[in-house]
């Protein structure tokens, strides 16, 4: 857990900045203090509060898998005050990090099951952590299918890794862009994620699905998964509520009796159906 005080961030140095799209960036961060770096552990699915001192904090998941230590990565879109400031930083500069917060993708329960990852737009980062985590322990799981879509080809993030995953024989990767977003040399699918998922119709017996994306995509993906025969408790997603403290005190992410930052952000569809529809 974080050091003595809940709200005091650890200092991290930006090692590398990767420009995924004109307004989406991935930062690779290393702990300024070696000891903290060694002691720091986290589980896939957890998130952190990233501080730009003088601007504030912003919330996004840890996009790198726990199997790779010594650094963490986060991916974000330049939208508000803090993310704009974060996007203005150079390798070598210092930011703050509080975490890891929230619950995890229970990958230990998914062993020998088939895994279906469905992601939309900027929501691939939380999935990337769990996908790499699973791929680093590839032999423990059944077949893995990844369906990833974005508005246009330019909006696809992690283009290098998508190519890497496409080249691997032990994964079935389906990438798509919304109609009208394709470029002449686009070889992937064209269509909305739910429709492409329906067409790909992966094996649904003994399958765990993980869905992340904009609310409208999730709304249309759940029925498709239900039609494929997946039980609500084996469909996982992450909620994108507004968060501030990350430790269940500031009240922002309070949805019903749950705090999305403590009881989530990972929830099963079954849990979501039990919660008030207020997320």
């Amino acid at each position, binding site marked *: 857990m974080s050091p003595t005080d809940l709200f005091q961030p650890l200092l991290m140095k930006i090692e590398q900045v990767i420009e995924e799209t004109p307004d989406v960036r991935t930062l690779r961060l290393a702990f300024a203090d070696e000891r903290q770096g060694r002691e720091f552990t986290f589980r896939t699915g957890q998130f952190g509060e990233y501080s730009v*001192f*003088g601007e504030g904090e912003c919330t996004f998941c840890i996009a790198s898998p726990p199997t790779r230590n010594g650094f963490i990565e986060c991916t974000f879109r330049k939208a508000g005050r803090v993310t704009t400031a974060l996007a203005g930083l150079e390798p070598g500069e210092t930011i703050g990090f509080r975490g890891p917060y929230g619950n995890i993708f229970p990958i230990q329960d998914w062993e020998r099951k088939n895994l279906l990852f469905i992601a939309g737009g900027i929501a691939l980062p939380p999935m990337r952590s769990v996908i790499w985590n699973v791929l680093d322990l590839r032999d423990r799981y059944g077949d893995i299918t990844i369906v990833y879509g974005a508005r246009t080809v330019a909006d696809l993030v992690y283009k290098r890794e998508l190519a890497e995953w496409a080249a691997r024989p032990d994964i079935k990767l389906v990438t798509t862009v919304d109609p009208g977003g394709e470029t002449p040399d686009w070889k992937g699918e064209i269509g909305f994620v739910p429709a492409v998922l329906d067409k790909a119709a992966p094996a649904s017996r003994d399958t765990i699905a993980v869905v992340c994306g904009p609310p409208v995509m999730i709304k249309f993906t759940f029925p498709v998964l239900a039609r494929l025969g997946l039980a609500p408790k084996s469909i996982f997603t992450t909620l994108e509520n507004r968060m501030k403290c990350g430790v269940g005190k500031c009240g922002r992410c309070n949805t019903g009796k749950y705090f999305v930052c403590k009881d989530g952000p990972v929830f099963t569809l079954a849990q979501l159906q039990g919660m008030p529809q207020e997320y």
Partner: protein
Amino acid sequence: MESEKRSIERGALSRLVEQWLSQGKRVLAPMHSGDKVDFAWVTSLDDVSLDHVQTVQSPKTAVFPRVEELFSFRSADGRVEVRERDLGALPEIVVLGLRPCDAAAMAALGAIFNWDAPDRLFSARLARTTLVTIACSRADEHCFCTSVGGGPGAVAGSDILLTDMGQGAYLAEIVSAKGREAARAAGPLFAPAPGMDKESRLATVAKAFSPDAIAAALERMFDAGGFWEEQSRRCVGCGACAYVCPTCACFDIQDEGGISGQRLRCWDSCGFGLFTLHTSGHNPRWLQSQRWRQRLMHKFAYMPERQQALGCVGCGRCSRACPVDMNILEHLRAVAEAKP
């Protein structure tokens, strides 16, 4: 452990206040300001108002101030140095003249701040705060402490509970260890209490509803859309109820001062639209009725279930402060009577 009963004269109390001030303690007590009574830092007992029913704001500002620094930072040439807050430097505070419901509220605040992981700043402030409560000899139509586990003479949460026995004498019940410590330090100022009958001096507050009935009703009523819209149509969406409420603890974190400055914690309210606005522009509580529902659900359903503490002590401040007369007692009765 039965609290020890002592008594104290008004003159002695005044000298006790001076003693506290001389010991470097800061005294927070109700003071008249215009036609309202509000908590303020006092310098003598004479400033303190003793004849009011309830103050506008709650004494939570002693343990959860409007604005407080979490830590400060300096950055130069890419290196950042974070300076932790020196909790030792927090002032010793005595809150004099708060009501039993306010004292009970400290427990609710503690339930929020120390839920799951302790909030060191809040806990340090609470540890340095001594609550010298004055029981209620009068109540008004907005008080409903008896309905939420409290009472005009309840001792819960107080360190010392004074009850005005008339003729300038107060019954002093020494409740907590901190209270005993304060009484010991006060030495001769506290006198023995010859058989004072406290009950006769207290106000009577009728019980309006049972919190469990409210919690049960609320569980069913989340989707009773029309009910909430009807109730909250008057509400114009300000933060007055949350900011005067002794048990509202939602906060915002803001940085100030540029690359060398402080990270501040300040009050926030679920009544504001910005509270839950996602970056994507989606807002789960887009309508005022949804935010009003959250206020009641959180205090009367979510908190009891999750933090084992009721989020309301029945002080009635939100009803008194509301510009459009959103009377919480009236609304709670409506929730209790609402047919499923």
